[in-house]
Structures are given as C-alpha cells and as structure tokens.
C-alpha cells in the first residue's frame, strides 16, 4: 500500500482511532502497531513479511541469548555474516553474477553461474541496519535487553521500514517502552505532511519529469546546457524527494507518538563535504560512521589508515544504495573528496578570520565548490550506466557560456536563484514548522488547502515515487 494513496489515508485514520482508544495499555498499542506493520508488508508480499519475522526472531535470540554461547566478537561476526549473506542473495547476486560472467567471457572463459529469481524484501536495507544498532547497543550495555514484541516492533515499524530513516535502538526502543505515549505535536505533524506533499508532488516530480529524466536517459540527445541544467535539477530533485519522504514519515510517526531522527539539515548549505555528510541522510551517515568507520579503526590508527578507512566507509555507503558501478563510484568520489579535504587540512594553515568580510567570502566560495562537487557526484548516482555518466560529463565539458546565457537564461537563472535563496527558504520553512503550534485549528484547513491546491495544480500527473525506497 502506497503511503500516498487514498487507501492508506483511510487505513491510517481508522487505525489511529483504534490505536488511541482511551485506557488502552501501551502493550496493546505496540501489538496494534506490529499488526498494522505486518499487514502493510504482507500486502506487498507474504514472503517479505515471513522473512522479516524470521529475521526479527533471529535478532532477538542473538541479542538477548547469544551471550550465553558466544563471545561478543562471535556475536558481531555472526550478525555481520547473516546480513552480508542476505544482501548478497537478495541485493547483489545478480550484479556480481553478471559482472563475473562478463569479466571471464572477456578472457575467453565461459562460466555459468546459477540464476536466482529472488525479489529484494521490502525494507531489508533499513531493518538490517536497525538490527545492528540493537545488537551492538545491547552488547555495549547502552540498552537493556528488550522484550520480543519490542524487538519485533522496532524492526517492523511501518513509517520507517520503506525508506528509513535509520532509527537508533537507544533512542527508539525507549519510545516503544514508554507507557505514557501521547499523540505528539499534531499541528506540526500536519504541517510536515503538507510540506512533504508539496516537495514530492510539485518540486521533485516537476523537476524529474521536465528536466531530469529525459536528459539522464539520453544525455547525447540533449545539448551541453540541458545536461548541465539536468545535473543541477537532479540535485534538487533527489533532495526534495528524500527530504519530502522524511517529512512525511516523521509526521506519520508523530501521530503514532514516536519521534524519528532528524535526517536532513539543509545539506546544500554545507561548506565542505564533511559538513555535507552531517546534513544529508544523517541517520545513514552517522550509522556508517559509528558501525563501519569507527570499527575499522576510524582516525585512531594513523593518518594514512584514516584515509583508507574514509574511502572504505564511503564506498560501502555507495554500495549500500545498490549493486551498480555508478553507486560505487559515487561513494568513492565522496571518499576521495573527504581525503582531499584532510590533505588540505594538513597542508594549508588554519584560517585566521572566522568573522568579517573575508570569512564571509571564503565560506560562500567553499559552499559553492562543495555544492558543485556534490552535483558532479550525483551524475554517477543518477545515471543508468557508467557510460551514460561519462557521456553526460562529456556533453557538459563542451559547454559554451555565451550560448548557455543566450538560450538557457531562464532555467539557469532559476537554478542560481534557488541556490542563493535556499538559506532563506530553509529558515522560512523551519520558522513555520517551529511555530506551527500557534496555528488556529479552525483556520488551519484553509491554509493547508491553499498550499496543496497550488501544488496539485502545478504538479505533473501521476504519483511521485520515493527514490530511496529502491535502495
């Protein structure tokens, strides 16, 4: 069931009336949430629901009883092996099978690896990461062992199973255990859902349909200027799409009495790549930092090893998005970008002025460079193939500025305006969000109708997709 369908609205509103029945114990509410989550998953596929149930039982047994038989290291190793196997079987097998066969056929060897007709279970990429957080937190004694229903709910919680955000067990399980659960900030929740619809239906879908998809599908069929505009447009397309999705599920979770982690913090305001990763898909980047980068040694094993760890962590982050060369390159590019920053930190003296005109210029120049590097890397992330990405870069490299200014002034100006006014837009929406509690209930529908009516009038036809649901 799509979160943006009429069915879901009816389902969710009905569910909320049962869920918030007075005097219902929190255990019953948790059981209702489990039932709702499993129903939604089973509507996609009963097999997916069974896989999730089996996996949840395994995680519960491993985290709660594993220490009776295994050492901490063995528990981690077993968990990593199971997740790795699941990812290989469901997510990466076809990619590796094809790549290996093609590689061997180039040197004249015909290898016939078996074919697997398997579907990627919905939410696997997200609930497997949730499980890591729970098992590690229990082993580190950051969290007491949770009950079976609590573990099951933590792994299946429907607002964040499709495309995150990745919930930390230390922050989420206490919310499941809270017996004083309450419907949180309903006006803010409604505002977030409205903002999500605006971002998804209007901004993201419009950019995708008019500027991004046609060009990325066939870069050589479009001019260098159109390729450049498509690159910028995709940066905003994926931002509006994913942050819109996050706003939507954050609003839904508030109605259920849960707070999801902040996943976006105005990422295109970042003035370097390290800062970008503290603002973009924060729940994933902090997960990669805590559960991959730091266990690899982080910055504790010398400068060179630190850079290797950075590159490895970022490449793994790329591979997590999917089995494709383009994702690996995207991750590696970000890793190399961070390494470059580290080299600069080593070589260049620290800036003397943190305030004043020079600092202002430096900060804005840094933001400009960072934004363009991120856009450049997005080319690999979005392209259907490595060849298409190269083709697009080739097209952009032939850009003739006077022609671009003469024929594409409007879209280029719009891109520039969006970039420059982005800080204001961010402050504006943040201001409304934080003050949404002051809206009057009576007149609230009028404001929401105006915003949504505008969005639906200008939006392209059809339902927008959640880009991150594919990962």
């Amino acid at each position, binding site marked *: 069931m799509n979160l943006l*369908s*009429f069915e879901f*609205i009816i389902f969710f*509103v009905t569910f*909320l*009336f049962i869920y*918030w*029945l*007075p*005097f219902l114990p929190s255990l019953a509410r948790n059981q209702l949430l489990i039932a709702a989550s499993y129903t939604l998953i089973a509507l996609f596929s009963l097999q997916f629901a069974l896989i999730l149930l089996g996996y949840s039982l395994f995680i519960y047994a491993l985290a709660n009883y594993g220490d009776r038989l295994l050492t901490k290291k063995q528990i981690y190793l077993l968990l990593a092996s199971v997740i790795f196997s699941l990812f290989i079987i469901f997510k990466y097998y*076809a990619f590796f*099978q*094809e790549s290996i*066969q093609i590689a061997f056929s180039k040197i004249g060897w015909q290898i*016939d*690896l078996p*074919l697997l*007709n398997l*579907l*990627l279970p919905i939410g696997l990429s997200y609930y497997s990461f949730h499980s890591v957080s729970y098992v590690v937190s229990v082993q580190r004694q950051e969290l007491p062992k949770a009950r079976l229903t609590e573990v099951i709910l933590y792994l299946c919680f429907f607002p964040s199973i499709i495309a995150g955000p990745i919930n930390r067990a230390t922050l989420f399980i206490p919310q499941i255990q809270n017996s004083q659960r*309450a*419907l949180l900030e*309903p006006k803010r*929740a*409604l505002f977030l859902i409205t903002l999500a619809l605006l971002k998804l239906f209007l901004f993201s879908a419009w950019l995708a349909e008019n500027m991004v*998809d*046609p060009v990325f*599908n*066939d870069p*050589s*069929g479009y001019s260098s200027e159109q390729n450049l505009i498509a690159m910028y447009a995709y940066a905003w397309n994926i931002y509006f799409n994913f942050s819109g999705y996050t706003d939507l599920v954050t609003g839904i979770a508030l*109605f259920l*009495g849960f707070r999801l982690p902040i996943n976006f913090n105005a990422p295109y305001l970042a003035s370097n790549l390290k800062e970008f990763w503290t603002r973009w898909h924060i729940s994933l980047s902090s997960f990669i930092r805590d559960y991959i980068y730091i266990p690899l040694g982080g910055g504790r094993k010398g400068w060179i090893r630190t850079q290797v760890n950075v590159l490895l962590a970022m490449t793994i982050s790329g591979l997590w998005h999917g089995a494709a060369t383009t994702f690996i390159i995207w991750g590696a590019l970000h890793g190399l970008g961070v390494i470059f920053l580290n080299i600069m930190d080593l070589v260049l003296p620290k800036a003397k002025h943190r305030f004043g005109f020079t600092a202002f210029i430096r900060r804005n120049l840094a933001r400009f460079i960072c934004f363009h590097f991120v856009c450049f890397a997005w080319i690999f992330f979005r392209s*259907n*193939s490595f060849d298409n990405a190269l083709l697009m870069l080739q097209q952009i490299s032939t850009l003739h500025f006077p022609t671009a200014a003469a024929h594409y002034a409007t879209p280029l100006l719009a891109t520039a305006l969006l970039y420059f006014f982005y800080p204001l837009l961010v402050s504006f929406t943040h201001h409304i969000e934080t003050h949404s509690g002051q809206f009057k*209930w009576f007149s*609230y*529908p*009028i404001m*929401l*109708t105006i915003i*949504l*009516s505008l969005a*639906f*009038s200008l939006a392209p*036809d*059809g*339902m927008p997709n959640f880009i991150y649901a594919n990962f």
Partner: protein
Amino acid sequence: MMYNLKRLLLSCYVVFSTGTLLVWLHQNSLENFWQQSYHSPPPWQSMQSIEAWQAGSRVHHALASAAQVFWQKMQGQTITATETTVLPSSATTSSLNESDASCSCSAVANIPEDQIVETEPATAPDIIQPKEYAQLKEGDRVFFAGDSMMQGVAPHLAVRLRREYGISSIDLSKQSTGLAYPRAFNWPETIRTTLTKHPDIKLLIVFLGPNDPWDMPASKGGKYLRFASTEWEALYRERIRTIIQDAQAHQVDIIWVSPPHMRRKSLSNKVSYLSQLYESEVRDAGEVFLSGNQVFRYTEDTYSDYMGDQSIKQKMRTGDGIHFTVTGQRTLANAVFDLITFTPTQANYD
C-alpha cells in the same frame, strides 16, 4: 487519555476539511485519477448534480485561467480572446470523449479519401500483407508513444537511431498511460496532433498495455464496461484502429510492440489478451507487430526475470515483474531497431 483522542479528533477535522476542499476544487483531475487507479466512478459522483459542488470546478477553472493570463502577460504575450479561454477539464474531457466515440470518423475527416485505410476488422488478410520492416530515410523522424515500459526502452532506441542513421526522435511516452482512460491521457488524440505538428515523423513506435486491463468508462459515460466484454473489446479495438489510421493517413509506418508476460499471473493473462488485440489490429492493417514474448523468448505463458531460454545470463526484468532492467530495455530496443530499414540519400552512396 482523552487528551490523545481530542488531539486526534481535531487533526481529523483538519484532514477531512482539507481533503473535502481539495476534492471540491480538483474534482475533475481527481476523478481522472480515481478512474485510472480504481477503475470505477469516484465516491463523490453522486454530488456532481449539486450546483454548489459544481462551483468548485468553476472556482478552480477561474483561478487556473487567471494564473495563465498572468503568466502570459508576464512573458509579454498578447492575450487574445481564444488564448484566454481555458476549457474546464470536464469540457475538455467531454470533447475528447466525443472524439473517442467517433474516433474513426473524426480521425479521417480531414484526410483525402484515397488515403483512408479499411477500418473494419480485416477479413481478407491476403489483401493487406503485414510489412516485415518499417522504412526510414534521411531526415525522417521517429515518434515513441507508450507508458513507463516505453520510457525505459525509447532512450536506448533513440541513441542507436541517432548514432547509426542520424535519425532524430520524439519521445512522448508517459507513465501510467494507456488506451483505457482517455480522460487521464488521450493517446489517439496526442498521436494525431503530434503527427500533424511534425510532418517529418515517418515511424510511430507504440509500446503500452499494463495500465489498461481493467473495466473502463464507456465513451458516452454511464456504466463502466467490463474488461474483455464484447463492448469493452469493441471500444478498445476502435482506439487501436484510430491510432493506426491516423498514422497511415500521414504515411507513417508503425511498429507496435506487445508487452511480454508479467510475473503476476492474473495481470499476465490480461496483458496477453490485450496483446492479441494489438496483434490482430496491427497485422490486419499491414503494419509491423513485435511480440515482447518473442523478444524475451518466453514460451507458452511462462515468465522469467531472465531470457526464457536462459541464453543470456543477465536479468531482463525488474523486481516488480512488469518493467525491464537496463539490459532488458536494450534487448527490446535492439529488437525494434532490427525491424527498421534505413535508406540513405544518394549523396551518402557517393
């Protein structure tokens, strides 16, 4: 405890009021969406006779017209009486529906009689022999029409046509479209206007189907026609024929690609039925038909993520069991490309 229920009731008041206002304002476009998604009339249909309900559509129309005029003025365009007249979507719809109902006639109304192709289901296949190949020459253009399946295939084909023959193309393929719900997207109308606007189009490639196997509204409104019923089939065939006749009237060759089997058995069976309709109409009209099942070497009613005979060990289909991987898209694009013959100009021979 009652505190949560109070908050919920207030939130429901906002959701319900906002939802009602939005449906009231956008009733026409939402009706199209409802038809396409649920294959039945919308729940608010009974209210359409109420004057106050109809006012919502007029308010939306007035606002849309004002916005359009504002936009045109901002762009420095002169506003003429006809330019400012924006038909409400219901009016547009009814005119489109009328054209559907009489599509065969209106489609050929402006075409010389000698160019009109027989519209009845061909009873004499010996008269019209299906073409084996579509013909293109330098300067011609190719037009892609279809749904999300075509959105995946068209770019690969466009690249090959441009690289190997220097042929340019127009891709109007759009997700969630088909022939069953012309109010949502009218392919016969779109194809007709595009062919008129671009006389250099000499090949039309059509690839659609999975959005269509449902009950659909009759041309003149009223009860929905049951999928695969005699009336349903007659109307659907008429729409296929309209497309074919319009193309032939513009001396445009057609390659019609039928969707291959789908993973979900019920959908696959329905799509197979549609494919039979495409095949019979296209072959009877003497145009080129390409079976998706043949391309993926599926036999009988089997489905596979890979080639049916496993001759290529690369995935062809995506997880939803409907669409294609990049390899699958290329495979289809290459199969279509092989059905095109290109004649360079004399200068190129020299």
